[in-house]
């Protein structure tokens, strides 16, 4: 286990060059974990909003809180990235777009589209 390794170790994040596909991939994981963490809150909101007119009003009230709105942008980004990136992964599994240039282009598209959709959501929610 404690065998010495000769591989260089870069702890400076700015010196590590991740290929764009790796960014898409790690963002897929991060967004997945964030969606998991928001799951209880979303079920709570579903429950509250269906408890009656008062519960519905409370849920709407809860969603109109500024901090919750800001947090919901993170959830929105997670959902969009996970959805769009997930569709890309499924297409890659079907061997669609697996050549390196194509995969790089679609990775960029996923990263940009998810951020754009989150910004659109922010604009819509404000």
């Amino acid at each position, binding site marked *: 286990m404690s065998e010495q390794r000769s591989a260089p170790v870069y702890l400076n994040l700015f010196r590590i060059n991740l290929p764009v596909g790796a960014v898409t991939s790690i963002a897929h994981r991060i967004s997945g974990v964030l969606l*998991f963490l928001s799951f209880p809150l979303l079920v709570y909101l579903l429950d509250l*909003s269906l408890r009656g007119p008062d519960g519905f009003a409370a849920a709407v009230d809860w969603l109109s809180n500024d901090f919750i709105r800001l947090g919901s942008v993170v959830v929105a980004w997670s959902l969009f990235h996970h959805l769009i990136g997930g569709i890309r992964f*499924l297409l890659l599994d079907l061997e669609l777009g697996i050549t390196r240039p194509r995969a790089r282009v679609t990775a960029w598209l996923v990263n940009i589209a998810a951020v754009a959709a989150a910004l659109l959501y922010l604009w819509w929610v404000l």
Partner: protein
Amino acid sequence: MSGSTDGLRAWLLQRISAVYLAGFVIYLLLHFYLHPQPDYPAWRAWVAQPLVAIAFAGFILALLVHGWVGLRDVVLDYVRHLGLRMLILTLIAFLLIGCGFWAVRVLILVSL
């Protein structure tokens, strides 16, 4: 979980559930964009429709499967200490199953 086909089964479950989740999420996004829910009666009536409630319950089930496979992958990759790994996996399982039952209970109560 054990056996040589486990990885393949998890891989398949992850993708089958992904297709259902993607379809349902796209449907939800389109629905809420086209028909924003302005009040409680409309929202409740929509959720209580049998087709919506059943599709929603299927969504919750797919979410549990998908979330479990995905989070298990993440934990197995980053948490190397065996005890800690088991503890985190157990917490995740409890949280997923708990929230799943909670959501299905809400859907059933609304449909009655």
